[in-house]
């Protein structure tokens, strides 16, 4: 029993040592919550990263070097994320780390990577990741505040003033709720009620009942969990017929399918990945989006989601900067923060030393759901 365990351990150690005896590829670390509570984000991101690295290697690598992806599953646990990050930095001496996809983990890694002078390209949404700017820390998802702005602009167009807010008790939900509250006065919006629900919530009738009693003109829900399909269902079930806005976390057709008929008419901001085919042919992102979508869907036999797109953007930015700067890490970081006009899935990246995200609110399109599919809201 014990000796067998010992053999397994030894085998693992030996395997690890022998792996390290290869010629010099560029090592890129990836920390994603492939399983666990944030797997909705991490799993498609991890698949995307593997796909990108494979295709880059098949095409001869970056700057003449192969890329090796070192993927770690953090299970959305910050302690494990930290342990893996230290391991990747010190032991594997990775060139850069992409991920994690939750803001909690990303914030724990921010100082760590910055102090170790290792590039971190986070795939989490919270703006605190790049504000204040840390020289080595970047992020690819669009800004929460821009998502909120797009929603509020749409509300202004529709003449909506009094709203109710629901958010899940995750980092994503909390960050969105904070932005909604901060920006409301600027757009003349009055948040009558804000409620937080558990990410594992199974029925939200009571909370939508409470919101309905506040006579709001619209509801904004901010989450990445399955519960965002429950909100529209429960609203329709209690005949609560006001417009429902969701966050960019709704960018997964799975959630539309779960919400069924109730998803019809939900308005939400998202990158254009989900509506790639509907874009006009001259749209600068169309080609990139269609290619990623086709590649991903053929390889993994599942619909693409915006969360995988964030990993795509992270690697696209990184590879681009390496191409520009060669193998030097410092130069790559400089190249990275001076990237302009890079077309990604989330938008067109224009970074600067003071903006380590590089997306503006035009990166978001307002989408809605019609006949169980995403369509551009403007085209409606």
């Amino acid at each position, binding site marked *: 029993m014990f000796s067998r365990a010992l053999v397994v*351990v030894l085998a693992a150690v030996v395997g690890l040592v022998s792996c390290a005896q290869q010629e010099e590829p560029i090592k890129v670390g990836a920390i994603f919550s492939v399983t666990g509570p944030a797997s909705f984000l991490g799993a498609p991101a991890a698949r995307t990263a593997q796909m990108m690295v494979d295709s880059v290697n098949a095409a001869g690598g970056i700057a003449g070097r192969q890329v090796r992806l070192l993927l770690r599953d953090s*299970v959305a646990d*910050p302690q494990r994320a*930290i342990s*893996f990050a230290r391991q990747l930095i010190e032991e594997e001496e990775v060139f850069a780390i992409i991920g994690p996809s939750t803001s*909690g983990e990303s914030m724990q890694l921010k100082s760590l990577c910055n102090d170790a002078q290792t590039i971190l390209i986070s795939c989490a949404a919270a703006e605190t990741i790049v504000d204040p700017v840390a020289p080595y820390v970047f992020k690819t998802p669009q800004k929460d505040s821009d998502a909120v702005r797009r929603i509020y602009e749409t509300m202004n167009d529709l003449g909506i003033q009094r709203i109710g807010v629901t958010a899940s008790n995750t980092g994503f939900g909390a960050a969105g709720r904070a932005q909604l509250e901060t920006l409301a006065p600027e757009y003349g919006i009055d948040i009558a009620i804000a409620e937080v629900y558990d990410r594992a919530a199974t029925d939200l009738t009571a909370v939508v009942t409470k919101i309905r009693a506040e006579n709001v003109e619209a509801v904004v829900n901010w989450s990445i969990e399955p519960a965002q399909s429950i909100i529209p269902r429960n609203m329709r079930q209690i005949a609560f017929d006001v417009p429902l806005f969701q966050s960019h976390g709704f960018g997964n057709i799975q959630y539309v399918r779960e919400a069924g008929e109730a998803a019809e008419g939900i308005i939400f901001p998202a990158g254009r990945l989900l509506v790639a085919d509907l874009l006009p042919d001259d749209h600068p992102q169309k080609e990139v989006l269609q290619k990623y979508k086709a590649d991903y869907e053929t390889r993994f036999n599942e619909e693409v989601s915006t969360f995988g797109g964030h990993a795509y953007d992270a690697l696209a930015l990184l590879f681009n900067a390496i191409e520009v700067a060669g193998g030097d890490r410092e130069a790559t970081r400089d190249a990275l923060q001076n990237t302009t006009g890079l077309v990604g899935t989330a938008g067109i990246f224009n970074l600067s030393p003071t903006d380590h995200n590089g997306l503006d609110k035009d990166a978001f399109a307002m989408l809605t759901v019609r006949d169980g599919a995403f369509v551009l809201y403007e085209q409606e």
Partner: protein
Amino acid sequence: MSREWVPFGALAATVILIQLVTMFTNTQYYLTQLIMAALYSIVVIGLCLLMGYAGQISLGHAGFFAIGGYTAAVGTTLNLLPHRDHVLVRMAERAGLTIQTTNSWGVDILYFSPWITLLAALLLSGVISLLIGIPVLRLRGHYLAMATLGFGAIIYYILLGSRFLGEADGIYDVPGFGLPGGFTFDGARNNRVLSYYFVWALVIGLMVLMHNLVNSRPGRALRAIHGNEPAAMAMGVDTARYKLSLFVLSAVCAALGGVFMAHYNGGMGPTEAGTLKAVRYVAIVAVGGMASLWGTLGASVVLNFLSLRGYFGSLDDAVFGVVLITVMLVAPDGILRRLGMYTLRRNRDTAPDAFPVSAEKQVQRGTA
């Protein structure tokens, strides 16, 4: 040195040996996970005493770990500068209990000394475990397991629901723990060797204390409770008080681990209070043989080290599930004892059996 202390000497020697080996082979990065494994070991050493020697299960120790970690994290990241005029802050500052510095983002901050927050964390976990232990420790078996699980869940939801505690993001940018001699316990690469020796000194110290406890008057009383509770009471042992004291002691141990984890990793998130972490602690104690401090320490270091290095990949939780079931099926008293490698002292099997067949119950049933 009497034979009693040989294992401790051996442990200390191993700790030093590992450090020297990693230094000469230039693989010092292994120390990172050994430090974190040591911090988790502090939790399970306490839990081992509670489960193995007093026979009380707790699925709430992740909650105490988080209480410790969060107290340290909040206390040392809360910027006191805006509250400088407050009487308490002024008093603390004058007494030298605060630290003023500029953080990595160029903000001036004034925060409580980690020593103060360490003390606060230990006190807080002690008081909370006392309050929760009084009603809960009257329960047994499944009821106790569920009640402690419920306690852990409450802590988890409080952490998730409080803006003050950072909600799902937790708390980050926690400074290191300044120790005498100008050395700081934190995750920085150049402090690693000293941090390693510091935590392992802590673990060895704790092991000595616990070993002493097991072989002292209260330790004997606790084992007697596990061996036969009614008889222990008839011998004058205040069983309720002893169980409670041990519960508090193990909770304080968990908080101690949490405090240093927060300083080492520079933060803490609500997942530390999650059910899966609590189950992990129980699993480790079970693998170690319930009533074996050395077995528990060994299991903790091996399992945590492998898990933190990511050897199990996405099967991490599954591995713990398999280990739990296998150990319970094959060797419920622990693998070491199964292999006959269990020798705590001169005489064999002096520690209580993890799963004594309840003779009490048999008799009651038989005559009922």
